[in-house]
């Protein structure tokens, strides 16, 4: 059967000693880079591109791919340990993961993240192997109208992310949307809200906001008490998730994997949306008792599976159509061009070793990552036993250098400080940052697609409802909105009845 033959070919390529070595180097480096806030896979891959000149093409791409999904693993680690989401997709992991760490359950959190990610990686590798070309065609069906409707759905999901006041969550989403609009407007070229500062003309970076609002504000909040010994529970519960934990998470991992595989194919932000959507879905469909936001392990398992599945399937547009779905893929295209490979639809047929070798090595890489990360958990736990008064300056250092390294600009450090203050204020006012971050990421994309859809339809808004995919997405959004609002409507009605 064709699939088996292809996979066999792929594995012979991936399991060659040389490629195994490069894969290992890639995932190791990726994990390290993911753990360090700020420096991300993009910068690392860019710096390593010249190294790839000298390597054979398959090895080079295997290593670079390893860096990419290795960084996903690494980013989740810091999100769980110190509330620092290294990648935008780890923001959601931080919500419950960090709470688990505070409760002494960092081990199970990290372990579940690794296990969930491995499962998702395996499944999505199969998905790629089986369905890459048809999935790519589906991805092409998503035009600006469909993306816009997807973003609307995503935003309503963002509101669900919050566990406090619904209306404040909505307000935070909108505030996030507005903050996301800072920068050059794609459609007109005008620099909005930049006040003449050139560093703002490309917008506020995600890293800047995340470091400030999640990382530093958290430090400031923790330093409130004179005695910082209770920040992290000294008694470590266990190092790995129990069988019970794992069983509990099976549905979550499955849901996350499906969602991640589906959304990852969409170029331009699909993988991002995957982890948010998975968390939201989980919140609404997990069996009670639910503890989301306070350390529910399923709140780690679902988004982690989703973001790993999404990271793998985001290779599909690259490998089948030659279109990069995110900046990392654009770099991979660069690497391919350096090797003289013109990325495009013919890569699959003209260079099967490359195509299948990469797919097989994705699975190998995932395996390596689990083997690497599980033992490391012990080390990370030890790290948390360092007294907080010594830990937090280290966090501060990594945040500061990390944020600087994104654009080599001190300006970003100042912006991070501003967001740290804002984050602190928001904590005091009980306004949650997670919906804001989602709005921040989705806002500009939503507006861009809305205006582009209107441009393409020459001003006809009915397009959103006449195009089938878009209509379906908007329909789901409406249903979700009703589900979200109905508890509060019910509550209001109950209050009304009580007063009557």
């Amino acid at each position, binding site marked *: 059967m064709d699939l088996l033959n292809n996979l066999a070919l792929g594995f012979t390529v991936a399991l060659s000693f040389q490629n195994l070595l490069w894969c290992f180097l890639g995932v190791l480096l990726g994990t390290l880079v993911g753990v360090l806030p700020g420096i991300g896979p993009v910068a690392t891959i860019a710096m390593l591109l010249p190294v790839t000149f000298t390597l054979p093409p398959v090895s080079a791409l295997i290593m670079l791919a390893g860096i990419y999904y290795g960084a996903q693993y690494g980013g989740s680690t810091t999100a769980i340990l110190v509330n620092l989401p290294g990648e935008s997709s780890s923001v959601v992991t931080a919500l419950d993961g960090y709470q688990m760490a505070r409760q002494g359950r960092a081990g199970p959190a990290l372990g579940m993240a690794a296990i969930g990610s491995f499962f998702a990686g395996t499944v999505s590798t199969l998905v790629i192997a089986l369905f890459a070309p048809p999935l790519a065609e589906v991805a092409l069906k998503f035009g600006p109208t469909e993306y816009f409707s997807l973003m609307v759905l995503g935003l309503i999901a963002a509101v669900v992310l919050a566990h406090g006041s619904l209306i404040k969550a909505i*307000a935070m989403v909108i505030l996030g949307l507005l903050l996301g609009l800072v920068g050059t407007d794609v459609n007109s070229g005008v620099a909005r809200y930049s006040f003449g500062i050139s560093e703002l003309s490309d917008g506020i970076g995600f890293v800047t906001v995340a470091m400030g609002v999640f990382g530093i504000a958290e430090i400031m909040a923790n330093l409130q008490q004179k005695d910082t010994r209770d920040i992290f529970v000294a008694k470590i519960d266990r190092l790995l998730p129990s069988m019970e934990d794992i069983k509990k998470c099976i549905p979550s991992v499955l849901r996350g994997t499906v969602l991640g595989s589906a959304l990852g194919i969409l170029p331009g932000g699909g993988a991002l949306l995957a982890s948010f959507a998975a968390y939201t879905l989980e919140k609404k469909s997990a069996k009670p008792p639910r503890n989301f936001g306070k350390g529910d392990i399923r709140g780690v398992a679902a988004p982690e599976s989703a973001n790993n599945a999404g990271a793998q399937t985001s290779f599909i547009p690259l490998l089948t159509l030659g279109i990069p779905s995110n900046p990392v893929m654009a770099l991979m295209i660069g690497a391919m061009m350096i090797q003289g490979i013109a990325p495009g639809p013919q890569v699959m047929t003209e260079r099967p070793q490359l195509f299948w070798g990469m797919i097989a090595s994705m699975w190998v890489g995932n395996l390596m990552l689990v083997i690497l990360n599980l033992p490391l958990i012990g080390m990370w736990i030890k790290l948390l036993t360092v007294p907080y008064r010594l830990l937090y300056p280290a966090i501060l250092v990594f945040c*500061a250098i990390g944020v600087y390294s994104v654009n080599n600009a001190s300006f970003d450090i100042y912006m991070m400080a501003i967001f740290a203050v804002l984050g602190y204020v928001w904590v005091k006012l009980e306004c949650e940052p997670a919906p804001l971050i989602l709005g921040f990421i989705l806002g500009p994309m939503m507006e861009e697609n809305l205006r582009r859809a209107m441009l393409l339809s020459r001003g006809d808004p009915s397009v959103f409802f006449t195009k089938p995919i878009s209509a379906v997405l908007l329909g789901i959004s409406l249903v979700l909105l009703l589900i979200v609002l109905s508890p509060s409507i019910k509550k209001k009605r109950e209050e009304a009845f009580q007063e009557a």
Partner: protein
Amino acid sequence: MKIRAPKDFWAGLMFIAFGVGFAWVAQNYQMGTSVRMGPAYFPTMLGGILAVIGLWILIQSLIVAGGPVGKFYFRPLILIVLATVLFGVLLKPLGLVLSLAVLVGVGAFGGFEFRWKEVTILYVVLAIFSVLVFVKGLGLPIPVWPGE
């Protein structure tokens, strides 16, 4: 008119301020029409909605009881922010090693337990690690010493 929920009161006020602020600045750009939206369209609309929601939260805070605003602890707030900003300012002229001293020193001061020996050792470790990993290892173009 009594503020029954100070936390929500100030939150509402903040949202109104942001909403109005964003909408107002947006007036510098073209509005366009709803068919061909200009750069000001979306922000103005969103700013308006935000302000309205903020107003709603504010009004609610006058009617329904709620919690007080969390206590502000100024020492960690100011010192951590100061440490970060100073680092940003001093990084280029003084280089990584020296500005890290300021970051760690002032930052450590933001906590309540400052012990010289500990902080110094921590600083040395962090400085060595940072130079090795970020500058030498990853090749980031960060000046290490003054005048680079």
